[in-house]
């Protein structure tokens, strides 16, 4: 299940929704809004999402992950709209019989979500300025080592 939400992500409910008696492990990744980026103090974030294609592409990412690293269940929810420091911007959860697949599928999903979905991030800085995060740097880093945030 992949979804876009303009409200706080219900992390407890999402976790419960993955319950499966054959599951040996759950791997979760949450992206949180942090208070700085590239040395600039950030006050809040705004996510613009083109929902029809984000949902289509997000759903495709979950299917690819299941092909590559067979798991039992997975969910991913990405926020849209205005977020404050500490808010959860994206939640990915994967349950599998063994931890190997859970970790690998979770990592694959978040990496692809960050690189492929039509989602844009505008940072509002403490100095009053604001800017779209081009993520050229992220894209480069991702290509090399899978890093980002």
């Amino acid at each position, binding site marked *: 299940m992949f979804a876009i939400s303009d409200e706080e992500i219900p992390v407890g409910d999402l976790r419960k929704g993955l319950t499966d008696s054959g599951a040996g492990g759950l791997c979760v990744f949450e992206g949180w809004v942090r208070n700085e980026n590239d040395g600039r103090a950030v006050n809040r974030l705004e996510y613009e999402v083109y929902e029809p*294609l984000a949902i289509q592409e997000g759903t495709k990412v979950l299917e690819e992950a299941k092909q590559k690293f067979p798991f039992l269940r997975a969910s991913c929810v990405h926020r849209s709209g205005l977020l404050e420091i500490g808010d959860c911007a994206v939640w990915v959860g994967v349950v599998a019989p063994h931890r190997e697949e859970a970790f690998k599928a979770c990592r694959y999903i978040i990496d692809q979500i*960050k*690189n*492929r979905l*039509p989602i844009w991030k505008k940072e509002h800085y403490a100095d009053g300025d604001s800017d779209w*995060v*081009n*993520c050229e740097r*992220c894209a480069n880093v991702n290509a090399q080592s899978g890093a980002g*945030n």
Partner: protein
Amino acid sequence: MKNITVRYFAMFREHAGLGEETLSLNVSTALDVFEQTRSRHGSSEPIGHCKVAVNDEMVDWSSAVNDGDTVLLFPPVAGG
């Protein structure tokens, strides 16, 4: 000439000053649409990590566009 509806997202929308416009353009590919609208709005964003969709389907820049198509121009994404 083809009637093309162009939709701009994020920084592209801000550069263009609008989210959508329908233009009569002499274009054959998605790349042509990108270049003509870029010069129209005086934008210099490199095509680098930009992406394009035609009628809600992600396509290559070399894909053909037809009269009546809606072309979505996506600046570099930054999910997560």
